[in-house]
């Protein structure tokens, strides 16, 4: 074997753990991403451990302590019906980040915002891949459809969808998916347009592989970097949208601890000296969105640093 190129050491494919650790190493190299991660993890942990972290339930009302400021008994104060704000915040975080209530007694893990983005990824990626790889009239039709959807102002689109199908967690998931699809589809389409010029796609076509194999198995895994970062940003947008819908009264029905409706309810008491019911949920929404943005930004910056 005179011409075999000797390798310096025998290297095998890194295991799943090693690859995950390598991905996390990129994350930890960026200070911005770490700050974002801390914020997001804080909310996730707090949401998961909600029953442990507070003695109150999110709906227990106390008429003797309405609109009270932060105190030893209520860390963040109470709202106009005497409900503990801290409890409502962390139970509200549950619905957004950790569990999706489907129907009365059944719930799925992973929160509403994340389900919405995942569903949007599914539909958007499919449309984007088809448009980018197949091209031709399919591309034209898909793009025009998406253009039509993007012509609506985002909040208006949300309102139309929720007003049409009613306010429940699963409908919010649907709305998030529909609103997020055009953006994701455009991103995936541009990535597919670039990747399909590569020789390994030619090689796959030469084998006579069918187009769906090429799209989902050859192209999609190579586009995962930008898609993941975009998805993180979209979770932030989704949370923001849920807050807005709640504020407008189209969120989860009361007495569900929806952050947006908490702000709407507490808005009336700001000038009369009890801003707590409005401030804390606003800060919660803001911090979560900023945390996700920082995480996405930090990852993007770090992955491009040594290009």
């Amino acid at each position, binding site marked *: *074997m*005179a011409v075999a*190129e000797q390798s310096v050491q025998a290297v095998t*494919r890194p295991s799943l753990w090693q690859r995950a650790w390598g991905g996390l190493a990129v994350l930890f*190299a960026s200070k911005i991403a770490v700050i974002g991660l801390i914020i997001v993890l804080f909310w996730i942990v707090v949401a998961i451990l909600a029953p442990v972290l507070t003695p109150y339930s999110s709906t227990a009302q106390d008429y003797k302590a309405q609109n009270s400021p932060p105190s030893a008994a209520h860390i963040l104060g109470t709202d106009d019906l005497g409900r503990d704000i801290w409890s409502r915040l962390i139970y509200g975080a549950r619905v957004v980040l950790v569990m999706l209530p489907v129907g009365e007694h059944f719930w799925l893990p992973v929160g509403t915002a994340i389900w919405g983005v995942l569903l949007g990824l599914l539909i958007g990626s499919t449309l984007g891949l088809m448009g980018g790889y197949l091209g031709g009239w399919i591309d034209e039709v898909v793009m025009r459809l998406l253009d039509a959807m993007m012509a609506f102002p985002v909040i208006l689109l949300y309102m139309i969808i929720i007003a049409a199908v009613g306010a429940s967690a699963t409908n919010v998931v649907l709305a998030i998916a529909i609103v997020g699809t055009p953006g994701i589809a455009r991103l995936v389409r541009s990535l597919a347009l670039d990747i399909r010029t590569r020789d390994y796609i*030619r*090689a796959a076509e*030469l084998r006579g592989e069918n187009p769906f194999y090429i799209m989902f198995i050859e192209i999609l*895994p190579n586009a995962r970097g930008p898609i993941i970062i975009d998805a993180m940003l979209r979770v932030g947008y989704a949370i923001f949208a849920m807050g807005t819908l709640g504020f407008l009264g189209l969120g989860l029905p009361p007495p569900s601890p929806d952050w947006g409706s908490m702000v709407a309810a507490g808005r009336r008491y700001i000038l009369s000296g009890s801003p707590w019911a409005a401030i804390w949920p606003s800060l919660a929404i803001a911090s979560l969105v900023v945390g996700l943005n920082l995480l996405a930004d930090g990852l993007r910056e770090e992955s491009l640093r*040594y290009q």
Partner: protein
Amino acid sequence: MTPTQRDQAPILRIENVAISYETRYGDVEAVREVSFEVCRATTFGLVGESGCGKSTVAFGIVDFLGPNGKIAGGSIKFQGRELVGRSQKELRLIRGDQISMVYQDPMQALNPSVTLGDQLTEVLTVHRGISQADAWKKSIAMLERVYMPDAANVMRRYPHQISGGQQQRVVIAMALLTNPALLIMDEPTTALDVTVEAVVLDLIEDLKRDFDTAIVYITHDLGVVARVCNEVGVMYAGEMVESGPVGAIFDDPKHPYTQGLMRCVPRLGATKESSRLYPIRGRVPAPKDRPKGACIFAPRCDYATDRCYQERPAVREIASSHNVRCFYAEEISAGDWKPSEGLVPDLTPAAEPESQKPILAVKDLRTFYAQESKSILSLVGLGKKRYVKAVNGVSVEVQSGETLGIVGESGCGKSTLAKTIVGLESPTEGQAEFLGFDISVPVSRRDKKLIQELQMVFQNPDSTMNPSYTVGQQIGRPLQHFKTVPSDQVRGEVIRLLNAVRLDGSYYDRLPRQLSGGEKQRVGIARAFASRPELVLCDEPVSALDVSVQAAVLNLLLEIQRQYHTTMLFIAHDLSVVRFFSDYVAVMYLGHVVEFGPAEAIYAPPYHPYTEALLSAVPIPDPEAEQKHIRLEGTVPSALNPPSGCVFHTRCPRRSMLADGGRVCESEVPPWHYNTEKHRIFCHIPLEELRKMEPVVTTG
């Protein structure tokens, strides 16, 4: 060089320079202990393969190392003044006026949104402070010096409106406007076609005579070095292993790496035997694997001893100004070298095939690309359609077990021909038959069994593999898809294929980013041969690889072909690469085959005039070889509007050989002249005249 010139101080003196880059994992040393000097009116060639650090040295001279590069040690003296450690402001003033640089890709060196005239005058108005009008006149004069036709008009054009060769001339003109003392050229002809490269090299030689500039010429092509350089420095893995006058380096290379390089460079030999390529075993060490206390070439050296692994050789002067970094330089002689066992495959031709029916027959094939017209009428479908006539009437036949080499420059249609045969494009007209089946339909409409028999090896090793899957998965995919072996034997078959391409089984679990360019290309070859195809099309499989790796991959292709009795179609842009293993060669120009025949017939007269020009343009890595000097005028015409009659008539240097002065070339399509039964030439010039041609290359 006169003694007085030599006595003057060198324009550029580099001593023990070390350059390193910061990465996420720490500092990486790209270049270490490089020393050389360049005097006036001398061209110093810096030769090496990719990753050896030659461009890094050039960028280090002008401090273009990027935000994470730094000169870690040594000194760079320009005209006696130290450059290392100067501020950006001082360097900028020195650079633009006295040091100029010419880059590889002229399209990236020129600003696409500024006219050429403005870019040229900017150099003078900024550095010399003269008026715009004066600068304009001087720029036109310089353009004429670089033989730019219609210089005054070119000043008003934008870069995209002139051809690649002309752009490179403009860049060279820009570099020479300030009459710099030092000119650095970083692979200026690599991105150009062979015939255009020949013209630009002629220009550089002319300019050397007229200007007194010291030139540092960076390249990986030994042929170009032999033509243009006076002195040569050979770099390997960040170190300078040998340097000296060009004649000495080519006649009597002392360092084993230089000797190995000479043996693996393709040359236009007279016979197949003399054009054999012997690869250098092993691979270039990555920057982090370079030992500090040992000879860097020892793992790949045929003469390495224990001393080479323990001690780092210093640079010694062997003969006058011929320096080598090797302990045993005096004892090693290139002439005594014998190839080791199994280094090259047997070149004896396989037995004659029993059946004479060709495995692939293409008749009058035409592939046109419709060009989208921008007129309003074409929106409605009524506009006049224009076509890029990429392949315009090609007929070839390939017998089973043979290798056909298709050679031509960019734009000749060879890639389109390959794509049409393989089914990635649909032919507009003509017939194509493979194994008796019609293949004038795209891949999606071909039978799976037929697809299995026709596979391809691609040009670019970096994009030939999917970065998200392991080597084993990618080679195994065709096996699973075509069901060539039962699913439980797939892994075993993949390991067998890996061994066939000289890679061991540990590569099964590696990802493409852990492989070098040569290894990726081998995996690509393994993947193509996985389904045991009857015909494999290789689309410039080695042009993106280093010279030493090229030899290994070409030999590998030969071996695998013999092992599996495959027919091969090999596409290349350079006649020297196809020399040693093609049985037949087809030369293409602007969508036509202009000459077709057995390999020996193509490289010896009679030639088609285009073949003759191609052969005389290829730079030969031998300063003593005599090569005819035939240059083509003008540029390749656009395939949208190919010339009438013979498509080559606009540039043909032998047109005047005809009795009527070449008028028939313009009006009539040329006939095929059959020199022998299998050798044909597509030309109006009568065969007796063509037979009187002299051979293009005569080695000394």
